[in-house]
């Protein structure tokens, strides 16, 4: 269990975290969601003992300040930025951190195999791709089988393919029963991992909700672009507007604003009116006011 009690962190006159209190139950996965500057990473850094703070943080009853080493011994940390020793071999570096974490001797090879780096043991860390480095970060975090995982935007620097691979691995970590706290900007991370989301703003928690409730609470909307036959364009615009959609013409198609999780509805509406959608693209998710 992780508890944050009246956590406050100030940098000069600026309060990055303001009297924050919450807890993460055993085997629970909690996401910290919020814009840049909300204080999410500051919370993580305080938990890891990288910053001094006011208040109290405990990790499985170890005080993160007074019993820092013991508290960090409970934690596996996956950072956002992959800062490793680029001139070391992959296995060599993993063995180094295994010794620091007093992990079993067999852990490095086993974990590197588990994250799909079994064929890259002798490769220099600097020669690994971004996705491989993040998988390496996960392997390092799992050394010694810590009960708690702390992750700072774990997939933010990855391309789509690498992100999917890592999310798959993280889902397995969650399924293994680890307690997880992570920061995120990404819907996929929330949907894959989070049981509960703390929405932060200006160092405080605005509200708490489940992962499923988050899009609605934030008023998320999606934009989809539908490609239509030229002769059907005007009729399609009329039908969609009559159906309450916010829609505008865009070249040989239309762009429609829809509720998050409801991207197929305009396609169904047009299909019911015998208008064929020849192609579609999900443009973006937009956070509401």
């Amino acid at each position, binding site marked *: 269990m992780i508890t944050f009690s009246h956590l406050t962190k100030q940098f000069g006159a600026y309060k990055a975290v303001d009297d924050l209190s919450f807890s993460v139950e055993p085997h629970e996965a909690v996401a910290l969601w919020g814009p840049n500057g909300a204080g999410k990473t500051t919370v993580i850094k305080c938990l890891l003992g*990288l910053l001094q703070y006011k208040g109290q943080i405990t990790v499985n009853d170890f005080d993160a300040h007074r019993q820092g080493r013991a508290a960090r011994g409970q934690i596996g*940390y996956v950072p956002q*930025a992959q*800062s*490793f020793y680029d001139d070391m071999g992959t296995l060599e570096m993993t063995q180094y951190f295994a010794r*620091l974490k*007093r992990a079993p001797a067999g852990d490095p090879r086993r974990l590197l195999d588990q994250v799909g780096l079994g064929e890259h043991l002798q490769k220099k860390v600097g020669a690994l791709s971004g996705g491989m480095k993040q998988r390496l970060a996960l392997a390092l975090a799992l050394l010694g089988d810590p009960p708690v995982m702390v992750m700072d935007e774990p997939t933010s620097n990855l391309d789509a393919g690498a992100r999917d691979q890592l999310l798959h691995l993280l889902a397995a970590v969650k399924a293994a029963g680890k307690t997880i706290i992570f920061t995120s900007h990404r819907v996929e991370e929330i949907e894959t991992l989070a049981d509960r989301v703390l929405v932060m703003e200006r160092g405080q928690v605005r509200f708490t909700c489940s992962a499923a409730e988050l899009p609605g609470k934030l008023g998320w909307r999606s934009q989809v672009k539908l490609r239509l036959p030229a002769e059907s364009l005007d009729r399609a615009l009329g039908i969609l507007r009559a159906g309450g959609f916010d829609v505008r013409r865009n070249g040989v198609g239309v762009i429609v604003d829809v509720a998050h999780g409801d991207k197929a509805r305009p396609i169904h509406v047009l299909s019911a009116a015998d208008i064929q959608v020849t192609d579609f693209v999900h443009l973006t998710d937009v956070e509401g006011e």
Partner: protein
Amino acid sequence: MRLKTVWTLAQKEMRDALHNRWFVLYTLAFVGLSLAFSYMALAGAGIAGFAGFGRTAASLINLVLLIVPLMALTIGAQSLAGEQEHGTLAYLLAQPVTRLEIFGGKYLGLLLSLLASLTLGFGISGLVMALNGGGASNPTAYVRLVWQTFLLSLTMLSVGFLISALTKRAGVAIGIGLFLWLTFVFLGDLGLMGTAIAMRVPIDELFLLSLSNPLQVFKMSAVLDINRTLDILGPAGIYALQEFGRALRYVFLAVMALWIIVPATLAYWRFANRNDF
């Protein structure tokens, strides 16, 4: 503090030193120059070949004064600042290790690397001299010089660590290290002489001022070991021996110890209390 953790960290530092081309270059330069100095020590007398230990030790003092502080200052200056700049220090601090273990491991690793490099340099020179029959006079002076050099390297390593703890970027830290090296090497003597002349500083105060520069302390201590007098250093040298007698060696040792302990302690204090990772 877990000694095994400190040793693991120290091993990593030693590994990095072996892969550090500047460290390797310093070592090669030191070996090459010490052999060359030894050879040239007798060249002026028209005698070719490697000089005896005693004469070589005297020649090596100046070499040590130039290279060893430069080596130790720059390596120490990169120690913490380099890892911070690269981002690896924050990740290391997030592991179940204490800041004392990290500091201790880095210091121990660089200390052992420096000592190994110096031992290699002095050892090869010494071996070559011994094989060339140069051992007739005073090998003890050579061994004492090695010991004094070890102490000097530790003082500069500690100062380097202090610089590293106060900065966040390796380039800035190395720049400060180079500036301090220049200050110690060139301004120490000039500054003292200029001050003495301009302000008519009494001899005893001149001697105390000289103790504020660890390179001066090393030079005086090394010359005392070789010559058993400090006459060649002028009135301040004569005063020092008259004033302190046999205790003078211990005065030098105590000053060097302070120069090792104080900067290292300040460096650790700064590192332990930093709040900006």
